[in-house]
């Protein structure tokens, strides 16, 4: 298979690799950039464990080819904390016990960031609706909702 050069900036660092055109972006991130915080939980775009930010949008990195991301600016879970300080959403998940096994958590946090950009003061129903693309099997979502509410309050204060 003819390989193509793909250059992607992830969390401010440029990553260039020759890749097969069929390579999924999530595998570029995990296997080539070595950032394993972005997870793969399904193969049908349901679970959202692979959610990242690309050009300011929360996207499922299992549903994009790496070649489609050529030249893109990407943020993954590893890029959310700044200068050793947790992002308010990360704080919220910790404070409100919004995670158990931790596998869905990176995708949840990345989705929640977009959610709060769109709805800075979200209702419970808005939070639940906006998380439609992220599955969690441990928490029953109760504390994930609380974590995002907590983050929303703290982000509004800042």
């Amino acid at each position, binding site marked *: 298979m003819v390989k193509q050069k793909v250059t992607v900036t992830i969390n401010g660092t440029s990553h260039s690799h020759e890749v097969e055109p069929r390579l999924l972006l999530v595998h570029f991130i995990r296997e080539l950039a070595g950032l394993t915080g972005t997870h793969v939980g399904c193969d049908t775009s349901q679970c959202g464990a692979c959610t990242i930010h690309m050009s300011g949008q929360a996207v499922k990195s299992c549903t994009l080819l790496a070649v489609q991301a050529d030249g893109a600016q990407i943020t993954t879970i590893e890029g959310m904390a700044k200068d050793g300080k947790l992002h308010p959403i990360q704080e919220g998940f910790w404070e409100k016990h919004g995670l158990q096994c931790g596998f869905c958590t990176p995708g949840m946090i990345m989705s929640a960031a977009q959610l709060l950009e769109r709805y800075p003061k979200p209702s419970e129903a808005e939070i639940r609706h906006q998380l439609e693309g992220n599955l969690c099997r441990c928490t029953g*979502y109760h504390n994930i909702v609380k974590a995002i509410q907590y983050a929303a309050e703290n982000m509004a204060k800042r």
Partner: protein
Amino acid sequence: MATARLMGSSIKRREDPRFITGKGNYTDDLKLPGMTYAAFVRSPHANAKIRRIDTAAAKGAPGVVAIFTGKDMTGVNSLPCGWLLPDLKVPAHPPLATEAARYVGDPVAIVIAESQTGANDAADLVAVDWDVLPSVTSTERAAQAGAPQIHEVAPGNVAFKWQIGDAAETEAAFKKADVVVKKRIVNQRLVANAMEPRACVARYEDATGDLTLWVTSQNPHVHRLLMTAFVLGIPEHKVRVIAPDVGGGFGSKIFLYNEETVCSWATRQIKRPIRWTSNRREAFQTDAHGRDHITDAEVALSRDGKFLGLRVKTTANLGAYLSTFAPAVPTYLYGTLLNGVYTWGAIHCEVTGVFTNTTPVDAYRGAGRPEACYLLERMVDAAAAALKMDPADIRKKNFIPKFDNGFQTKVALTYDSGNYGAAFDRALQMLDYKKFRAEQAEARGKGRLIGVGFSTYIEACSIAPSKVVGSLGAQAGLWESGKVRVHPTGMVTVFTGSHSHGQGHETTFAQLVADQFGIPMDHVDIVHGDTGTVPFGMGTYGSRSASVGGTAITMSINKIKEKGKKIAAHLLEASPQDIEYANGQFQVKGSPQKAVPFGQVALTAYVPHNYPEGVEPGLEETSFYDPANFCFPFGAHACVVEVDPDTGNVKILRYVAVDDVGNVINPMIVDGMVHGGIAQGVGQALWEGAVYDDGSGQLVTGTMMDYALPKADMLPMYETDRTETPTPVNPLGIKGAGETGTIAATPAVVNAVVDALSGLGVDHIETMPLTAERVWKTIQAARAKK
């Protein structure tokens, strides 16, 4: 004082910083030098003989390192079944099928390549010449005449026939009954769907003969023992099994599976590390499934609503092979729970386990106990409906009265302690039950279908007394280990045989240990999930970690305190009998100013210059705790639903949960497990179900697009509370909290839907999940009848 602060406190989890920053360490994150990647060739047929496997084209594909079929694995045994019932039919279960494949997904070859895509591509080139045979997937049809026969050793596809209780006494109870209520109850098949798919990395080191297996396991020592001693015949002590961060288990990661066994064998052949990670489609096809019972149940009642007798006949689908603990689930984890929280005249239960051409069935969160609870709680409501009694009243009439130490049930178990009425009263109070019934009547007048459902459940956990389970067929002991190492500086490392895959052991066990020593929590570290560092342990399932694992740790702490007293007595020139441990120091009883701090005793143990005669240096103790009995958490859940009469859609309006799990280490973590358990129980009631096409044997619900997992917008906020009835079984008074929600929720939801439809004359819905379509059809049928 540290003691009062830590136990019972909602302390934030110390494992969270790594998970919320993407620094978790899951099996698929591991990359080793020289690593290869595996893909499995699987049967696309439910029942087919293997005529020939042609690997020539695949072997020539780019990057292929090796391909193995079952015939290459000479000297390798069957995957073992770890629970043997009398006269159980145990068919061979080769890690790679050699003669025939018996379910869609049964692996027949492993393809190993330099890249994952290379392995996947080459797997597509392996040509299997199949002789496709008729198959049977239906639980009901499996043992009927004319069904395709799956294993020669199991005529009629029957794996076992099992019974518990007293048939004659039950028959007599039914003869005396004023009213008999009969129902068929189908408990559908589920798929656990832990968010992290199963995975393994196997690395053999030729120079030393050491094999390391990283695997998504809830019990690494059990994995190692079964794989080395029973299947591969390689020395147990030369194998190290590591279960790093594991992304949920819910039972599905207890069992020894084909894939890690084959990878561990294959790395010894190719002498390079191999990584295999299941994709979700493979997970649906090969992770052990749960539930799948069809039951005919009858309750004998007096006219005033006393429970005289219960008769249960269940067919349990075991799938194509016996998974590790499969026979225990529909028998000793099911029939023994049919007494529930009620006083019965008599109980008798018969179970037939059948083989089908489906994925093997084994423990899924609750394992047997949800099936028992669902059956009982559905029958209790059906009985109330038949007698025109309030479902709350019939429960109160039949509850076992409060007891502190021992209640003998009709089905072998002796409950530990219980106060069932109190938990139920609290739930009714939270619900404001009387007010709810008034509102319900008013809503009905306006054509709205609102209902409430109860579930007053009990479960057996804290698994399990070894002697008891051994006498019932377990091939393992079910104790737990706990090693406590006090370092010279007084810092503490604890090694537990329990394994955390979401439960938060690194936090709760640190709370427990810091409390008991009276030292700061950050002086305590918890190590788990590695056979190279942890003493042999049985792992985490059956809500056993805090109660069994925590008690093992406590026993080691007590041994350290006893040794410390001798050292302190020597330093204080006192007698050891006069020393007590309190507030982080060894002190003379009644004179706390005459004391040696914990850290000084630790240092003295390692620098024993001024040291008592006959005491060994060092401060490290290991204990193995075997519980004397199971523990029996209980509680009362109540669910309020509204059914849309036009679409059949069910909306949960309220969910109230009162659980009694005994003493609690970290309420935040217990609540979290209850929430997640409820979500899984609601999932079974309303949306989830694995469906096979009985003609082709294909798993129709084979992806997350087809199998409806609960999403955030399908679930409510949960209203939780607790009563606390400590268990007398272990010194911590902890019963166990991991499975209560799942066990309780399913009947609460289904009872609520039936209650909502009761005005239409509905008193039962045979099959879950209660999808909008099924509820709509129920409404239509009820209206047609009227």
